[in-house]
């Protein structure tokens, strides 16, 4: 792990991939989580930051202790040397004496001999008990003249020898920390040989450019001079020798089949640990393997090993570990463009778009130009910058038109156009791409998916079939076909296809999730729950499986368990708006409407781009009877994305409630319903007929819907609508037959009305009592009026019978679409 340690901040911060944790010096076992943006705050004011790479915790803690001791020792010395703080001096002396050690004392002296003191404390007042401090203070006081001389010489160095004031400050800090100031002071005081001081200074400051000239200029300002030329000659020889040493290769183990096999076995062992969630040992063994490869001079293979392990980590959902390993790969072999590209991919998965873009650029500079440019396109797409993404993919396509992998750019263009809703253009791009690159299955599938987006389900199905004929093992095409069957409500066929996908590609979540979704749509909740549970276990990084599991519990009426499941999912996938919205829907279902509104508002705050979040809030406003406000909210969504049909049809429902039938009809499609959205639109069309007095036509629509719809949940919409139509015709028995045993609010209203009208007062009274506890005020008002009209309560009716019928129909719309 990489650690940043500071004695000043008394803290250690670990950065592992995308994860940031820290502990305080006085609580090393209390590891706390933080985030990347807080790095600056976590170590704010730390002037002694040390970075430790791949260090173990014991080494990190030792480093922290050392830095803390040094910092506090300096601060105690500050108090002793501050004339205005003498009231604290005796305490400071005691503590400093305890802090001085083999490691701390030279550090303290390095700083103390670099800058003249403003005031000299009387050394005879320091108790002999604290001999270390007494000696230290005597030394500092005794060397003040030499310190001043060395400081003056330093300040007199021509500023032009340094690149910049900041460079000078860096150099000065290094000169202090490395003890160069101290040695110069001791040399000036005659306690050390100046040649030795110069030699030490040159060697320790060698990484700095222009060091020779700077040290010569510094020495020139000193009053003690020796034969510097001779020393510098010696330095040159030493430096060259050191450089040669640096260039010596390590002990290279000759590559062999056995060595290769050993690496393979080690990798398998690490993957095994990953699969068992033993990340500690996976990290440990990976480090050992890579260290061995590096020791053998095999940096290129070490980087490849890390990239391969990172892929495995990704497969198992350990995205942060994936990032950690690919970043190590980049560090091990900085010239490896492939590793840089892998790092970029890892950043992209973690939504760290800016880092991803940086690493794709790096990959481009290291020769992976097309990969990098396509990557940049992906980053722009993922961050919603679709125009720029399109331009980037197009540039990549044109610039690398003869490259073997340029089809990725074509696919990128097609996908961005799909995202932009320009489906005709996307279809054209995919059609062209398929003509050019006939052997690339993803392009065939992209074309089929675009046809599906266009609503051309038969053509999409044919396109997927064509792709399957050409590429028999192509799973994407099979999943696409299964999805179409599911969309059309052909559930048995969809199930068969998903089963086949699972058989062929058990490592792919799409088959498992699709299978579970179909079971749920069919209303086979028990089986769906088992299927989702399996998907969750097998693919713990898939939010869809978690959401589906919670939704199924909700369908089954196990609301508390569903809420627990949602809470688990939201905690695991905190940036997934669908899960948060599902949880808010569930809260609404439990009747905690105020809390639900809060949850929707929070979702809108957290995911302001998410139409699902905006739609959830608008829907609740509709349910609560705030129709104008809901209309404005749906308009806001439509303005953002006109093709978001869920909101469009909800708007049509509100318009129908408000009696603006023509406007509502303008929104609704006229084609025969096949998909879920189309069935919802069809239901609203029926409600328009009903509300405008065309009851027979409405009943025809609802009966057709009831007998043809395949979607379990939406079937109840037609059932309630048909019952409401029967009530409008005073067919109470028929209405009752349709809603009997229904537990939804609407079903209870219909039963209250029917039983009341049929004279079953006791049963009716039961429903009345239940509905009076409903969280919707419009439901309570309606129940009250029905009770008054049929004398369940001793109060006169406030409205007409027509009012009741009208409100019932409004309620069907408000609680459905």
């Amino acid at each position: 792990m990489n650690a940043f340690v500071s004695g000043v901040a008394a803290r250690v911060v670990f950065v592992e991939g995308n994860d940031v944790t820290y502990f305080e010096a006085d609580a090393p076992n209390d590891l706390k989580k933080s985030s990347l943006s807080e790095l600056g705050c976590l170590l704010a004011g730390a002037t002694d930051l040390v970075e430790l790479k791949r260090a173990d915790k014991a080494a990190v803690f030792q480093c922290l202790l050392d830095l803390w001791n040094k910092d506090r020792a300096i601060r105690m010395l500050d108090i002793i040397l501050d004339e205005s703080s003498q009231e604290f001096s005796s305490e400071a002396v005691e503590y400093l004496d305890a802090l001085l050690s083999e490691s701390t004392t030279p550090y303290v002296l390095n700083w103390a001999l670099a800058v003249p003191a403003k005031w000299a404390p009387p050394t005879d007042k320091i108790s002999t008990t604290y001999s270390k401090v007494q000696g230290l203070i005597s030394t500092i006081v005794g060397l003040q003249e030499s310190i001043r001389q060395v400081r003056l010489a330093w300040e007199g160095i021509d500023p032009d020898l340094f690149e910049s004031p900041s460079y000078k400050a860096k150099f000065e800090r290094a000169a202090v920390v490395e003890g160069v100031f101290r040695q110069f002071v001791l040399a000036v005081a005659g306690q050390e040989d100046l040649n030795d001081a110069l030699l030490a200074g040159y060697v320790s400051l060698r990484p700095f450019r222009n060091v020779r000239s700077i040290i010569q200029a510094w020495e020139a300002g000193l009053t003690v001079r020796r034969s510097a030329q001779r020393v510098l000659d010696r330095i040159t020889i030493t430096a060259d020798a050191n450089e040669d040493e640096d260039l010596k290769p390590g002990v290279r183990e000759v590559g062999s089949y056995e060595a290769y096999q050993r690496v393979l076995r080690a990798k398998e062992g690490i993957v095994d640990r990953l699969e068992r969630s033993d990340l500690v040992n996976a990290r440990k063994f990976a480090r050992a393997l890579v260290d061995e490869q590096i020791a053998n001079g095999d940096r290129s293979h070490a980087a490849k090993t890390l990239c391969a392990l990172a892929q495995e980590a990704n497969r198992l959902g350990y995205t942060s570990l994936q990032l950690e390993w690919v970043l190590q790969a980049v560090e091990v072999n900085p010239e490896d463009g492939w590793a840089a590209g892998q790092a970029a991919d890892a950043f992209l998965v973690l939504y760290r778009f800016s880092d991803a873009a940086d690493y794709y650029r790096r990959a481009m500079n290291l020769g992976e130009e097309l990969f990098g440019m396509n990557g940049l396109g992906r980053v722009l797409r993922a961050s919603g910058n679709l125009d720029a993404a399109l331009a980037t993919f197009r540039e990549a396509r044109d610039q690398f038109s003869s490259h073997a992998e340029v089809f990725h750019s074509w696919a990128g263009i097609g996908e961005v156009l799909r995202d932009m809703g320009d489906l005709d253009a996307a279809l054209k791009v995919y059609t062209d791409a398929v003509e050019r690159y006939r052997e690339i299955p993803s392009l065939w599938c992209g074309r089929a998916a675009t046809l599906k987006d266009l609503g051309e389900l038969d053509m999409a199905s044919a396109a997927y079939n064509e792709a399957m004929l050409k590429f028999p093992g192509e799973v994407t095409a099979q999943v696409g076909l299964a999805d179409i069957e599911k969309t059309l409500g052909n559930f048995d066929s969809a199930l068969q296809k998903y089963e086949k996908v699972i058989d062929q590609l058990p490592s792919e979540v799409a088959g498992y999730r699709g299978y579970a979704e179909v079971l749920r749509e069919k209303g086979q909740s028990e089986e769906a729950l088992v299927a989702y549970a399996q998907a969750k276990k097998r693919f713990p990084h898939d939010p869809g499986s978690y959401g589906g599991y919670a939704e199924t519990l909700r369908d089954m009426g196990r609301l508390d368990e569903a809420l627990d499941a949602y809470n688990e999912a939201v905690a695991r996938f905190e940036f997934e708006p669908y899960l948060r919205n599902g949880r808010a829907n569930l809260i609404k279902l439990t009747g905690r409407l105020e809390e639900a509104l809060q949850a929707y508002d929070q979702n809108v705050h957290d995911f302001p781009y998410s139409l699902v979040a905006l739609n959830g809030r608008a829907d609740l406003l509709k349910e609560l009877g705030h129709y104008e406000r809901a209309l404005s909210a749906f308009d806001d969504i439509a303005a953002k994305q006109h093709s978001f049909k869920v909101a469009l049809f909800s708007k049509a429902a509100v318009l129908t409630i408000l009696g603006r039938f023509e406007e509502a009809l303008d929104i609704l499609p006229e084609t025969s319903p096949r998909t879920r959205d189309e069935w919802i639109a069809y239901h609203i069309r029926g409600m328009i007929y009903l509300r405008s007095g065309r009851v027979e036509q409405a009943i025809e629509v609802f009966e057709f819907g009831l007998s043809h719809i395949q979607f379990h949940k939406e079937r109840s919409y037609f059932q309630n609508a048909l019952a409401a139509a029967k009530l409008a015709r005073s067919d109470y028995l028929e209405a009752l037959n349709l809603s009997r045993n229904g537990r939804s609010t609407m079903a209870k209203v219909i039963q209250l009305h029917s039983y009341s009208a049929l004279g079953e007062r006791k049963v009716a009274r039961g429903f009345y009592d239940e509905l009076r506890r409903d969280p919707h005020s419009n439901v309570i008002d309606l129940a009250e009026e029905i009770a008054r009209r049929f004398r369940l309560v001793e109060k006169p009716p406030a409205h007409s019978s027509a009012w009741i019928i009208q409100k019932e129909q409004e309620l069907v719309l408000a609680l459905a679409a």
Partner: protein
Amino acid sequence: MFSLHLSQINCYKEWHLGVAGAWMVACHACNSEVPLACRNCPACGADNGYPNVRLADEPAEKEALALRVAEAEASAAAGGYLDVLEALGIAVLSSKAIVARALAPILDLLNNGTSLYSTYSLQLAAQSRTPEDNEFDRVRTQFEAALAPGFHREIRFAALTLDDRWLSSFGRYAMVLRSSMIEKRATVFEENPYLFVSRLRVLLNQPLPVGYRATWAQRSDLAKAKLFSKLNTKTNSSEFPRLLLHDTHDHRADYIEVHIFGPFNRNSVAKVVGPKPKTREDRLLWKTLAKSIETLGGTAEQIG
């Protein structure tokens, strides 16, 4: 179902990135272009105000924030807690900026000029600072640069507080700043920037969406727009401090970030708060700190 609706983000950005064109302003004195990052006009040298304040004062920012406040009020009205929302807004008008640090850096600020070696070390560190040198600074700088494009090195970060509580993960101790010393140069931002860019899937090299920052004087509007969904009819005003700054002691802590243009010094500090130090050395440092701040007319309080 669970894949991100990219076109939703795109549309959202088209709607909310109104600030993208505001990288230049016209100098109030000579009408020349002044880059967003500059305080003084490069042509005539006239002071055109603090860049962060100018940014928060952009019409696009103010309009977007006003829309958010209107949405908040609409929801509060629907939920029956409009009076609670108003009370929150009034309370936040008295909020202060608080800066959390470890004990030693606070001491360094208060004792600047009197502690010889600490001050010298601090100066060298400050002068030699090149933030992009390592991974630590590189990552941190990305976020700061996105929040304060072109002038992030001039920004000091703090959090809004109503009761002198602070974010413990940022430091065991904290300094409450005198509002009079920062009110003209401070702005506020919605939340922890890491969570913000993750939630909104923002590319850090592009302008942030508008409506999430405000001037110091408008900080109560930002608080209302941000926090309304956490209120209800039963929310008591004693809960406001925890809503404004919710310290979870980890990365989930929620707060409104304060951006202060330019440095602050010991005269900007009204109060230092923190627990009793655990080591004898730090207890001695606390004593010197208390003496320093009292000399400056402030207070030191041990809490927690």
